[in-house]
């Protein structure tokens, strides 16, 4: 499909029958507006954030929290056979778009971000982005620039950290009334 005119387009990737457009975060809103108005992607289906910390070094996804702190799992035999292609930055944010048209065309708009780097809100393009953006901030710690209500969505308001990040321990929560508190 012709996506050459999309503002801020860095790269178009085709894999597994899916099209991914890597877009410069600074021009994300422009790109999304054009995709909605010119290409008919009227529905934002999902925003999925991914943390690539430790990508390509097996064992990192196996953080286990212990009473002494965060320990790395032994990679054991679950290590990788080949190193995966390196990623440009730590986080990717994937906007899955759908056009309500015959053939159900879909496209993934992808932006790459460093830790703490904000991404502009696409609320003005699709109002349904609201909770998805707040979820990305809450669970993955991706600041959404220009969101009118940038509160946590899932976790408590006073929660520390962003639980779906790779450096957030699994099972590292202090257990209440356990005597270790």
């Amino acid at each position, binding site marked *: 499909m012709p996506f050459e005119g999309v503002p801020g387009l860095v790269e178009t990737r085709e894999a597994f029958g899916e099209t991914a457009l890597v877009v410069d975060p600074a021009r994300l809103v422009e790109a999304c507006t054009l995709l909605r108005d010119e290409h008919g992607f009227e529905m934002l289906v999902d925003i999925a954030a991914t943390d690539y910390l430790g990508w390509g070094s097996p064992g990192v996804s196996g953080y286990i929290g212990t009473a002494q702190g965060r320990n790395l799992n032994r990679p054991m035999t679950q290590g990788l056979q080949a190193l995966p292609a390196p990623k440009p930055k730590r986080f990717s944010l994937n906007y899955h778009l759908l056009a309500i048209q015959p053939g159900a065309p879909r496209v993934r708009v992808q932006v790459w971000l460093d830790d703490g780097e904000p991404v502009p809100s696409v609320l003005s393009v699709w109002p349904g982005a609201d909770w998805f953006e707040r979820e990305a901030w809450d669970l993955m710690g991706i600041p959404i620039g220009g969101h009118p209500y940038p509160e946590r969505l899932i*976790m408590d308001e006073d929660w520390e950290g962003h639980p779906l990040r790779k450096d957030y321990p699994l099972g590292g929560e202090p257990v209440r009334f356990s005597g270790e508190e």
Partner: protein
Amino acid sequence: MALPVARPGQQDPIYEGTRIPSPIPTVLEVDPAVKDTDDILTVNFGPNHPSTHGVLRLIVDLDGEVVVGVHAKVGYVHTGFEKNMEQKSWWKAITYAPRIDYERSIRIQVVFVLAIEKLLGLEVPPKATWMRMLLSELNRIHSHLVWLGTAALELGAISMFWYTFREREMVLDLSELVAGYRMHTRYFQTGGLAEDIPAGFYPECRKFVEWMPKAIADYDALLAKNEIWEDRTVGLGLLNRRDAIALGQTGPVLRASGVDWDLRRDDPYLYYDRVRLHVPVFPQGDTYDRYRVRIEEMQASVEIVDQCLDRLERLEGEPWISDDRKVVLPPREELHTSMESLIHHFKIVTEGYRVPEGEVYVAVESPRGELGCYVVSDGGARPWRVKFRAPSFAALEATATMVQGAYIADLIAIVGSLDTVMGEVDR
């Protein structure tokens, strides 16, 4: 196909323009002129209220009995499914998927297994695909039955609950017959099914297919022309086509707003392109039409189950799982005679199979709308990232748009008509 969005100059039958609150689309704010006056009463609704279908908290501002502000709070049952799945091998992570949504466990398993198979490029035998479809449709009936029973219960139609749960038992019995479990089955395996379809399933399922249309006619007779039901649902919780699409609504909510869209027909997966499929669409965008859509969908699902049975009965003795030994466990009896099979069995169980590097998004039409699964693999034995696109999550975003001007009693009917399951919203 109908034009999805009313273009400028074209009459929208529900309401003109947009009702999505501004600047925050999911929060209905009280008019600042009356905000701090004595007329406004702020009520906390939930999180442990029986009509919230889980643990949803709504902070509602009332002017008399009219809802003038609403603010939804979610997250009470966040259990970190997605994070947990990253720690398990692909094989073990399948077990987590159905726990996310207890009413629709089959569907959410299918979408995860389909995502793994897409990354692997694995061919699935026809028998497994037909069975996946059959169970998915049974699951749709199950989900709609639970919705119908509880939604009617909330509006005082208590008898509906007993009727629908009678048929729900039948679906769960079928599920038990197939997988040994009533809910949260782990019957789908990468490459096919975990076991062959048990003897006696087809006749039992046929009985259900024969019984169900009559039961659906009964529900409809109890509710469709029921004056109280009509008073409580007609013209309430309005959502027009433009707003529904802008808010990312899918499934029955979208179809009740007049958008003719069903992934089973428009973006076919499994074998949905090989069956007759009726997609009910209603134009009024209210709670009553959402009820109509679900009733007709149950009938359509029964027809699909019937067609799947016709195909499955002809596939007696066919393989139910792929023969790719790098991914699929070898048959049990081979372990006693073949060293090679023993090694494969050991490797798959202890270490897990490796899935090629890549990222995919797979979507299926669940009873509540588009259920998506975004999966990233680094080429290892565990998923790098799993993200579910939950239709309930998107549906709740429309609450603030739908409840404008509604009475507090109708709030329950409107939120109920979205058919949300909080386990899936919070994950």
